Structures are given as structure tokens and as C-alpha cells.
């Protein structure tokens, strides 16, 4: 069957196999640069209009669908599948990407490890190798769990058959319950990606400042790994502020210490404890990791205010974490960090 995208760049037809994929993933998979942010129904960025054809909505109550004009045929492309030929109008400029189109992978869960009482790291072995940019994510579907969830890759390799992810257990979280309770090694999952534009670009980016909390560290780990390999430090500076409730909730201390050591003094990592006094000025497990008290954005604001040397011209801020933390961190980067808004990158999941 064919899907014709009517875009501001003209009509772009693609061939689609069947109704197993959403219209968004059909288009992205064909290399079209369709607009999207979360790809999981929350943000509303992939809004479009069905001009003709038979489609069905896989999640009518998606938070991102609240503002849609249903009576005129408006849809979220990430929650719509086509049953046959259809014409979809997309209010954006869309081009055909030369390479790097996301696609569907089958993966097998390998090496589940519990990092704290509520954070698990898991590896996925892919059926074929994937290429992605540091900071990107995959939308993962698990058996018996309806809808996809977006998870950022923790690792960074030019091309790899193994992806590392983090998941934080949430009360009532269907996917995390599945992973924590019933999934074991070798459980099969399906992945679509890579997706996301909050990526590190070593040629264009200068100083890096990252503010994150909880499992938001995932994509930041990939970015720091890429920065180390690209010898970005110490020519440019790097600052990571990583928030946790207590010392027992901190993780990746050994990995962050190793990255700091490899940065030749370019990278400075501060763990911020929000619900416990810091027992010392550095982490008990490594003197390379500083400890501070307060919410992570407050700690970052304090250091930035005290720092007489500001961020360089092409500095970039990366933010990842729960929505209230993201909002507070953006304020700090604009205010104390003096970063222009277009130098701040984050995934707009809400």
C-alpha cells in the first residue's frame, strides 16, 4: 500500500508494508524528516491530517492528542496506523534524508543488573548492527505491554549490535513492572530507532554542561563517552550535575570517575544529594567525583554563579530528567549559565 505525505515541500509518496507500523515510523523509516519529538504520544509535535484513506488510532487518549481537531481528521502520526492507501497532510517542510533513517530492530534482553533499589540497567542484543548519535533514543515495545516507551542509549559506539539502557521503576509503570518482575535474560523485545535530535555534535559544539537526575543520566553517559573518544576535553570544558535523593541512590560513580580521569582535567562531575547531607566533599568511592547538597539545578546554579570563567561561545547545555527538574535546569542554563535558548538540548517528552 502507499502513503502519500502532502507536505510544505510537496507530495512525498512512500510504500508501506502493512498496518503493523505507525504512519510516523513508516515515513521516518523511508528517510522522510517528518516532524516529531517524543514519538510516544505525549508531545503532539507529529500532528497531521488524514485527507483520505482508512486509518485507525492506536491510543485515542494520548496526552498529545488533546488539542487535535478530530472532526477535521487530525491525528498524531505516532499513534496512527494505515489500513490501506492514504493521503496525510503534514504542516511542515519535509525532506528525504540521505542516510541514517531509523528502522525496526528485534532485540534480546541480556545482562540485567540492578544499580540501585529502583534503577535497572539492561543490555539488548540486536538482530543487526545499529548506528546512532550520542543522546538518541529507541522506542521499545515489550510483549503484552501496549504502546512503546522511549529509552535513551547509555553506551556509544559508531556501530554496534548491543545497546545499553536504564529504567527507573515507577509505581504502576507497566513497562518497568514487566522488566522488573517477569522479563528475564533472553526476553524478546522490538525496538524502533534511533530517534531524537538532542545529540552531541563534536565538530560544532564547544563547552558542555549537563544537568540530569535519575535515569535521565542515560543519554548523558553516551554524550560524555562520545566526547571523550572525540578528544573534546580538555580543549573544551565539561560539567555534569547529576541529582539523586541520597548517596544510596547514586550510581555510575565508577564509570563517571573513569570518564573524568580520561578527560585530562576537562570534565568535572558533581553529584547533588537532595534528601540527605553530603558526608564529604567527594564521593566515598572516588575522589574525582564531587558531592554537594540540594536539588541538582540549585547546585548547578551555585557553581555557575561562583565561577568567574563563563561558558564559551559554542557551549551547549544538555538536560534530561523528570519534567519539573528539566524546567528548573533550563532556567539555570538561561539565567546563571547565560546560554542562548537555541544552545539548550533536551527531549520534549511532555
Amino acid at each position, binding site marked *: 500500500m502507499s502513503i502519500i505525505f*502532502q507536505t*510544505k515541500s*510537496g507530495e512525498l509518496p512512500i510504500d508501506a508494508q502493512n498496518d503493523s507500523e505507525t504512519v510516523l515510523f513508516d515515513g521516518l523509516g523511508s528517510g522522510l524528516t517528518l516532524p516529531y519529538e517524543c514519538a510516544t504520544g505525549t508531545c503532539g509535535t507529529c500532528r*497531521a*491530517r488524514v485527507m483520505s484513506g482508512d486509518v485507525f488510532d492506536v491510543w485515542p487518549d494520548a496526552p498529545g492528542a488533546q*488539542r487535535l*481537531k478530530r472532526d*477535521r481528521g*487530525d491525528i498524531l502520526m505516532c499513534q496512527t496506523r494505515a489500513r490501506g492507501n492514504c493521503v496525510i*497532510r503534514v*504542516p511542515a517542510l519535509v525532506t528525504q534524508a540521505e542516510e541514517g533513517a531509523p528502522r525496526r530492530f528485534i532485540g534480546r534482553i541480556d545482562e540485567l543488573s540492578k544499580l540501585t533499589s529502583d534503577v535497572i540497567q539492561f543490555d539488548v542484543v540486536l538482530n543487526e548492527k545499529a548506528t546512532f548519535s550520542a543522546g538518541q533514543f529507541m522506542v521499545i515495545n515489550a510483549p503484552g505491554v501496549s504502546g512503546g516507551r522511549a529509552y535513551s542509549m547509555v553506551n556509544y559506539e559508531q556501530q554496534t549490535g548491543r545497546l545499553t539502557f536504564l529504567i527507573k521503576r515507577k509505581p504502576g509503570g507497566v513497562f518497568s513492572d514487566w522488566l522488573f518482575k517477569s522479563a528475564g535474560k533472553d526476553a524478546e523485545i522490538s525496538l524502533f530507532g534511533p530517534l531524537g535530535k538532542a545529540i552531541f555534535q563534536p565538530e560544532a559544539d564547544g563547552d558542555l554542561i549537563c544537568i540530569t537526575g535519575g535515569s535521565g543520566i542515560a543519554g548523558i553517559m553516551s554524550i560524555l563517552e562520545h566526547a571523550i573518544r572525540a578528544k573534546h576535553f580538555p580543549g573544551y570544558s565539561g560539567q555534569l550535575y547529576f541529582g539523586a535523593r541520597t548517596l544510596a541512590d547514586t550510581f555510575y560513580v565508577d564509570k563517571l570517575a573513569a570518564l573524568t580521569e580520561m578527560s585530562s582535567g576537562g570534565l568535572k562531575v558533581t553529584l547533588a544529594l537532595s534528601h540527605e547531607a553530603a558526608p564529604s566533599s567527594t564521593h566515598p568511592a572516588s575522589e574525582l567525583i564531587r558531592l554537594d547538597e540540594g536539588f541538582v539545578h540549585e547546585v548547578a546554579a551555585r557553581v555557575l554563579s561562583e565561577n568567574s570563567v563563563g561558558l564559551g561561545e559554542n557551549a551547549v547545555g544538555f538536560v534530561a530528567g523528570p519534567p519539573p527538574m528539566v*524546567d528548573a535546569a*533550563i*532556567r539555570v542554563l*538561561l*539565567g546563571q549559565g*547565560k546560554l*542562548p*535558548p*537555541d544552545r*539548550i538540548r533536551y527531549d*520534549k517528552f511532555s
Partner: protein
Amino acid sequence: MSWIKVCKTTDVPENSLKKIWVAGGIPVLIAHYNGGYRAMPPVCPHMEEPLEESGVIAGCVLTCTKHLWAWDLATLELQGETERPLKSYDVKVDGDDLMAFIEQELLYEFEDEDDMDDDDFFKS
């Protein structure tokens, strides 16, 4: 209507935003930036976020933290990937008072901006 007293200049500290209801029941957002004041409708022209809560002023730039749309408050120039201009009322300082020229409430058209409705969709 014409020039209306909105508030005292000291009511809005520098680098802050304050929503004030003026006579006639019109909500006006006052922005005090480095170098002056702006008076505008209280929502972001992107997705109607309440700018009093979502907005941040740094230097001359107002940014809505929700999706990082931003404008230079001195020139009203659009920053980065911002797609729509800010509407604003003329302001002047009269002694301790901040005055705005308000003839009618400025509103953004969120319902009718939908260019998917246009017959000349492909020509834009």
C-alpha cells in the same frame, strides 16, 4: 481606551514577569528586562503556556521554557527556532507608574492559525 496605568515600576523587579489585570478585565503580562519594559498578552504564542510561569528573562531575551521559543524584548526579534512573533502593547514610564496603551485586548489566534485548512497549503 488609551494609556492605562498598569502598576508601579517597582512592582516588577528586573528579570521578572508579572501578570496584571487592568481595567476592563484585560490580562497584561509585564516583562522587566535589562533596559526596559514590555507589556503583552500573558500566554506564549506557541501553545498558550502561561508565560508568567513558563517564561524566563535573561538579559534582553524572554524564553518560554516549555519548548524554548524566545524573543529579544528590545527588538521583538525571534530567536532560534521560534516561529511566531510576540504581540505587545506600547508602554511608557510616567514617574513611578508604568503605563500601557491598550485599545483592545491583544489575542493570539490559536484556532484559526491552522494552515492545514488553507486551500493554498502547498504555496506557502
